[in-house]
């Protein structure tokens, strides 16, 4: 139990915060219901994928500044491919775009491994490259998305055996998110590859000496990041029905949520659940601020304060909880 708390305490605390925020939301807007929860889930979708993309590389001891640009590129690619195409064609577009994200992500990894330039610089450079490529694909927002794809995030999932009121709280967007993340994350977490990703983030030298193929593992971590980012890009196209070549605010948001979610920026620690809950928390805070009709400029201040305060609080309890005298 104490080990569980030590390992998962932060995530549990975050979850409690989320529940608390739901209660607050219900108090502010008593009519807040399942439909609004569905809106929240849809808003979470691109952020959650961005954060998943960031989490994988951060655990592997890196950082990926190209997440948002990758989302933009995959989004415009999907949107321009589906523009004027048949509904069935989208069946091909989706795997194609996912594969593209995977390959481009792997390319990030290869560049890092081969050039030995720090990851922050390589991904900054690929940020520009991917942005440029997105502009070449679509000079201005446009394109289209297949109707069945758009429908895949609207409405709820009927779960047999559950009463209707409960079904209403399972929006398709949430189900889609959970399925996409779990399909990749759970097998990964259990595999040696997953261990290797944690290992190179925790101590690269020790990992190398334990026989972990460090370069290959790093490339795969970035490839997975690219894959998640492509899912994020697709989710943008699906929810807006277009592709936009200018990246949205997902880069900084992803870094913030990763840290809020208890993943150490040095690597090796944390999981995917924390950052995803953190995304929900951040989105719900925004909903609450809108519901309260707070001055939008003050909103920026509040969002910044929350980010700093939560992380400071986390740091504070870890300082308190650490055996005295030890430095991090």
């Amino acid at each position, binding site marked *: 139990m104490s080990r569980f708390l030590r390992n998962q305490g932060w995530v549990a605390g975050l979850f409690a915060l989320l529940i608390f925020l739901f209660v607050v939301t219900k108090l502010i807007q008593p009519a807040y219901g399942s439909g609004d929860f569905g809106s929240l889930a849809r*808003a979470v979708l*691109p952020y959650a994928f961005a954060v998943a993309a960031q989490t994988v590389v951060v655990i592997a001891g890196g950082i990926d500044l190209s997440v948002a640009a990758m989302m933009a590129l995959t989004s415009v690619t999907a949107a321009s491919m589906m523009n004027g195409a048949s509904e069935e064609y989208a069946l091909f577009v989706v795997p194609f775009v996912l594969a593209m994200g995977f390959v481009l992500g792997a390319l990030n990894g290869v560049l890092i491994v081969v050039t030995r330039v720090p990851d922050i610089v390589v991904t900054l450079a690929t940020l520009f490259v991917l942005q440029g490529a997105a502009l070449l694909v679509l000079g*201005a927002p446009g394109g289209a998305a297949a109707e069945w794809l758009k429908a895949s995030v609207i409405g709820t999932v009927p779960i047999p055996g559950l009463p209707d009121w409960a079904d209403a709280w399972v929006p398709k967007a949430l189900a889609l998110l959970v399925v996409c993340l779990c399909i990749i994350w759970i097998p990964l977490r259990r595999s040696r590859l997953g261990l290797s990703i944690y290992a190179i983030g925790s101590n690269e030298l020790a990992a190398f000496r334990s026989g972990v193929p460090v370069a290959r593992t790093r490339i795969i971590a970035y490839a997975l990041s690219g894959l998640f980012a492509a899912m994020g890009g697709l989710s943008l196209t699906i929810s807006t029905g277009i592709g936009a070549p200018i990246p*949205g605010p997902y880069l900084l948001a992803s870094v913030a949520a990763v840290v809020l979610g208890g993943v150490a920026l040095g690597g090796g620690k944390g999981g995917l659940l924390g950052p995803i809950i953190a995304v929900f928390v951040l989105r719900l805070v925004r*909903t609450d601020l809108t519901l309260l009709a707070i001055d939008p400029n003050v*909103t920026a201040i509040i969002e910044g304060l929350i980010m700093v305060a939560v992380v400071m609080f986390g740091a504070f309890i870890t300082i308190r909880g650490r055996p005295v005298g030890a430095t991090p």
Partner: protein
Amino acid sequence: AGKYTIGISNTVQGNGWREEMICAMKAQALASGEVAKLNIAHRNTDAAGQLEDIRNLISAKVDAIVVNPADPAGIKAGLEEATKAGIVVVAVDQAVTEPSAYIISNNQEQYAYLGAKWLFQQMGGKGEVFYMRGAAGASADSDRDKGFKKALAEFPDVKVAQEVFTGWQQDQAKQQILSFLATGTPINGIWTSGIDNVIVDALVEQQAPMVPVVGADNAGFVGQLNTVKGLVGAAVTNPGSIGGAGVTLALQILDGKKPAQQTVLVNPELWENATDAGKAKLKSAADPSLSPEWPVSISIPDWTTYTKDQIVACKGPGE
């Protein structure tokens, strides 16, 4: 005193034009006396983020939503949901594709066409133009590009010497024009997408030959048109106060006075300092007390009723 709650969604922050738009919305809501509360979602984000904001406004049960769309098509789903929830939707500044929404918009294509045509005429229908666009990939930029290209097609002897994207950022634009001037390439005119005063500054600083400059009606640039010696130029109006007009339209609809068409276009005007009539117009428009990034056209006749003090105070109902 008012009875309505109006939601506002905007996706660009920290730019004078957008700030004026928001202040116009607040001032108009206050001046109308019909609005109890404004609920403003105002941040830097993309279409997906705007969808989130619109849905949050739906959750907040506002009566109307006035939106400056990040992208005309990208927020269709959200606007549709809003209409279904019985909310009046008004798009300002740019059109939207959702048919149930009302649109009161600046005509971006016309904006570029008007300025470019004037510029090419000033150049005598021939020569090289420096084409300083906005942000690559933004929908307003591509609309303006259409207008510019339309004018260019009418003047076959005008050539684009160089095309750059300023990203609507002052520092980038200034660095670009300085680099360009340093090459010594001769040009006969400069078209800007509203990042204008830094361009004139650069010409003055570098003691480069003054060429005609087209910009927007930003207070700084309008001031320069009046005072900078040797500068021939034109400001094309692109009133940020369109936001106030959007609030007025939303209130009219809520009060049951629907407009004849779904779309109301506010056509830009061109103020130039090449003629005496134009000079007089510019003189009266100039307003050195405004922040240089704010467009001087702080009101739109027939559509806004607030005073200058009200928009400058930037206070909405209940503030």
